């Protein structure tokens, strides 16, 4: 430990007996989420001084996040809870936005679409004048090492880049206190390391921080103080980080906070974890370490296979075999295609080219039922696999109600789920859900078990139980394949590693061989997350630090950078059309009015006028070429031919008008006329719709609604945050369908089936919205700035000019004239 560190720890003693006034102090506080419910936190005494960095540790569900949210005033403001005891904040923590909060899930803490809007959101809430925003955005992005184009869509970012952006968004607010709540949970080792470097740099800059982190090894030297929680939600011990962790190591193992194969920190700055390789806490049978060399057909063999989605090639040139009875770990950077490869193995994704053989037979010749008799597959999100509403039914794979079969009871006991058989699978904790999904995999015997990130989000205890289960299966001769970021797991359990990176399989061999190949580890982002941050990092000069960030950036973000480059090129190539420069809310209102007016077109010329108007607006103000409009309109025209026929064949025929009978239809000239008029005027509305979708920026539209039409920011920005998740749903839907493909039995009643399909998707959506709303409120989106445009500033300049009124009124007037003047 450096001198600097020693001084710092000395200047920030633990407990409440300090000279300086603490930023916040919490005395004898208990928190429960509902009156009468068991307390999440009990008898908590905690205080925090300026410049201090505190690490919170404890088993899952011990209330670490609850304490963090209490410190951020999210409890009880955004998350309802009953708080007893005394919580005091100093003057530096009074305003909303004084606490910056970075959450675990990168997808659930953003509410805008583009980088700069995202960072500016917190500034808008704090009413920072627009003129100051670009500087503050720039410095926050730089400070967080997030060197990305301001107009980039962050939905395309990797997990690491998203977390850096989240940190930048929090830093832009210049928070007195920064809270990081498991910021690396979704990240690969390199991205994790980048976030840790960030934390080190922030500490060096004197930022007060509370950090919750499961992968804490690297952070130990840079956190002043650690607070240990036990599973009852009480503080077990607190004190100087390294000392306490070293002394309480056995307790941490026993509480399930750290895996039992880990070793306590010996001394500061040692990086033993990467270097050691021979030592083994769980002895493995040395005989099968090389994998069985049986002469039988391999479990899987791939020849020149390629995985591609649309025109995006994910992995190519995949040629490999997996022997029966092997234990394979697939590792690699975030977004490299680990899950895609696993899906290819299970036949859930098809190879674009090349071949995949399962047990010597081409995988496409396997019937799904037979294939999933051989293969058991576990998705990253266990909820996708749940079909039934009770744990007992789920495990039995049919509705059993109260009569739980013996086999199911045995599984319940084996996986620590006894007593939960009447509960809903969705109401279980993360660990219980995972155990349930693995338990149902074991219900029937399979030859191969495939797991997508099985240990993700699990505490050490559940991880150990799962891994031991896999080891038993492996000992019974089953083939195990899993994807993971956890290199410790690879070292302890895998017999073979496939490194997926750079669009292919970079390495295939034993874990020992991989750990000897430093080049591969660097290329696949596998090093780093456990390497202790040494004290030299803490005092690193800023420029040197930035260089490191840059090199890391170059390594991690190349595909996105390319995408951005392409996007910005496209932007430069296309100047903004008048429609894009007009006020989108007024534009929308006038188009909607015209669409309603068009309903009164009853003659062919009137209908044609209602069709010509949007066509004119698209070409004159939207600068869309007739060819482009035709291409966009073509699919609709085909549909409207069907409508036309409906009218031709079904229209009421006035007495005396000629009609013809064909089969059971009555065709009339009246019907032809009706069909033409109605189809053409509807196509006019379609054109307006196309214009809106292709030309109007949704962010600007929402800002305009707030500013010009007095829509409360809560509704406009809340809607934007909700719309942001649209692209996520299509991928969720695909995964859900795949998961259903695996289950051979569907629940009987079709209505029930709709509900069982809807449940996982909706539950995902509802949880996401709760998290998004909390994250938005954590960034100061509460009270006046959320209620009216008067009390916030705007990064996007969306104003109303006289020409907006002229254009809008002209569109409405032309539409009206088209009805009145033409007969």
């Amino acid at each position, binding site marked *: 430990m450096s001198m600097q560190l020693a001084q710092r720890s000395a200047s920030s003693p633990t407990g409440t007996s300090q000279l300086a006034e603490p930023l916040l102090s919490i005395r004898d506080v208990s928190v429960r989420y509902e009156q009468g419910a068991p307390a999440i936190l009990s008898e908590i005494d905690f205080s925090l001084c300026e410049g201090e960095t505190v690490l919170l540790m404890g088993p899952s569900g011990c209330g670490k996040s609850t304490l963090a949210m209490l410190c951020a005033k999210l409890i009880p403001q*955004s998350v309802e809870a009953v708080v007893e005891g005394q919580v005091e904040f100093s003057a530096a923590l009074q305003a909303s936005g004084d606490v910056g909060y970075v959450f675990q899930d990168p997808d659930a803490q953003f509410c805008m679409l583009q980088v700069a809007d995202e960072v500016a959101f917190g500034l808008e809430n704090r009413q920072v004048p627009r003129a100051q925003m670009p500087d503050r955005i720039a410095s926050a992005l730089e400070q967080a090492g997030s060197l990305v184009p301001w107009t980039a869509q962050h939905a395309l970012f990797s997990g690491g880049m998203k977390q850096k952006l989240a940190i930048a968004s929090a830093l832009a607010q210049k928070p007195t206190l920064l809270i990081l709540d498991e910021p690396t949970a979704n990240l690969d080792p390199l991205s994790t390391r980048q976030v840790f470097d960030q934390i080190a740099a922030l500490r060096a800059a004197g930022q007060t921080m509370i950090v919750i982190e499961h992968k804490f090894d690297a952070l130990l030297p840079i956190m002043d103080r650690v607070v240990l929680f036990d599973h009852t939600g009480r503080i077990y011990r607190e004190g100087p980080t390294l000392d306490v962790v070293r002394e309480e190591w056995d307790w941490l193992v026993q509480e399930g906070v750290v895996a039992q194969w880990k070793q306590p920190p010996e001394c500061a700055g040692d990086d033993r974890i990467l270097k050691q390789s021979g030592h083994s806490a769980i002895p493995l049978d040395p005989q099968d370490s090389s994998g069985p060399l049986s002469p039988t057909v391999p479990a899987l063999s791939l020849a020149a296979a390629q995985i591609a989605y649309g025109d995006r090639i994910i992995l190519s040139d995949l040629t490999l075999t997996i022997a029966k009875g092997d234990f394979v770990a697939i590792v690699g950077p975030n977004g490299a295609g680990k899950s895609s490869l696993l899906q290819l193995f299970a036949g859930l994704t098809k190879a674009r080219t090349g071949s995949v053989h399962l047990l010597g037979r081409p995988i496409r010749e396997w019937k799904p039922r037979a294939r999933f008799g051989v293969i058991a597959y576990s998705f990253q999100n266990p909820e996708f696999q749940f079909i039934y*509403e009770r744990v007992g039914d789920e495990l039995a794979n049919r509705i059993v109600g109260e009569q739980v079969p013996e086999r199911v009871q045995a599984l319940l006991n084996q996986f620590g789920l006894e007593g939960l058989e009447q509960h809903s699978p*969705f109401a279980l904790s993360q660990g219980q859900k995972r155990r349930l999904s693995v338990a149902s995999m074991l219900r029937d015997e399979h030859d191969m078990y495939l797991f997508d990130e099985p240990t993700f989000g699990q505490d050490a205890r559940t991880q150990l139980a799962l891994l031991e289960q896999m080891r038993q299966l492996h000992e019974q001769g089953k083939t195990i394949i899993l994807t993971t970021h956890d290199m410790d797991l690879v070292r302890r359990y895998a017999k073979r590693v496939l490194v997926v990176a750079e669009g292919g399989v970079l390495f295939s061999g034993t874990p020992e061989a991989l750990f000897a190949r430093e080049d591969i580890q660097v290329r696949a982002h596998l090093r780093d997350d456990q390497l202790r941050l040494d004290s030299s990092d803490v005092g690193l000069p800023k420029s040197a630090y930035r260089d490191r960030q840059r090199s890391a950036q170059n390594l991690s973000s190349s595909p996105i950078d390319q995408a951005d480059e392409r996007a910005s090129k496209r932007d430069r190539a296309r100047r903004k059309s008048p429609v894009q420069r007009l006020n989108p809310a007024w534009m929308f209102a006038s188009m909607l009015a015209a*669409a309603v007016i068009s*309903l009164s077109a009853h003659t062919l010329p009137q209908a044609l006028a209602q069709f010509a108007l949007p066509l004119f607006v698209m070409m004159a103000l939207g600068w869309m070429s007739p060819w482009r409009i035709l291409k966009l309109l073509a699919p609709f025209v085909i549909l409207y031919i069907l409508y036309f026929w409906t009218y031709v064949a079904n229209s009421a025929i006035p007495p005396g008008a000629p009609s013809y009978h064909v089969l059971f239809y009555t065709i009339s000239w009246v019907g032809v006329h*009706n069909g033409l008029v109605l189809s053409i005027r509807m196509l006019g509305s379609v054109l307006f719709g196309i214009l809106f979708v292709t030309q109007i920026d949704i962010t600007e539209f929402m800002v305009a609604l707030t500013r010009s039409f007095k829509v409360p920011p809560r509704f406009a920005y809340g*809607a934007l945050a909700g719309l942001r998740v*649209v692209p996520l749903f299509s991928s969720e839907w695909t995964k859900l369908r795949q998961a259903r493909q695996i289950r051979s039995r569907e629940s009987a009643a079709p209505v029930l089936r709709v509900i069982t399909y809807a449940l996982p998707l909706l*539950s995902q959506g509802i949880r996401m919205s*709760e998290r998004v709303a909390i994250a938005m409120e954590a960034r100061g989106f509460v009270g006046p700035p959320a209620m009216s445009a008067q009390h916030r500033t705007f990064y996007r300049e969306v104003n109303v000019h006289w020409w907006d009124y002229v254009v809008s009124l002209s569109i409405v007037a032309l539409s009206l004239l088209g009805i009145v003047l033409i007969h």
Partner: protein
Amino acid sequence: MKWKLRDIVVMVILAVVCGGIYRLWDVLYPLINTTWVPSQGMLNGLWFIASGLVAYVIQRPGAALLAELVAAMIEQALGSQFGLQNLVWGFTQGVGAEVAFALFAWRRFTLGTMLLSGALSGLGASLTWYFQGGSVYTHTDILLYFIFTLISGALFGGLLPKLIGDALNRAGIVRNFALGRVARVQK
């Protein structure tokens, strides 16, 4: 009764899911229509799920209308053949559903009010259909279309969302929303 930010975001997200589903039904619409016009009325309720589901889960004034509008917006953004007219449908259907809940001051979300809201959505949809082109058909077809739409609305726009909402509630997913809270108080 006040909207929380979480209610707003969940309203939008549920409406987005429903809007996506509506877009799928849109493909069926012209095909069914071509054979016997009133037959379309039987399926109309499938377009009212958003207002019923969102109103049932968050139980706020305006929830049914806003949800249906957002769902219509998503449906049209995904390329529905109704273009901007979607918003007209969304508005009338949403108003229909909202009226049912308003009649009970947004305090009763029972099977009865849910069925009524679905049926009134159906009334809104039928009127829109009439003005958008339905008026050219025979009186029998128009009358049957109205009746079928009301029934279908009550079932798909009232009963189905209630079943889904109850399932979500049993699963403990909506415990922080009005539906979950009310259910706990009643226990």
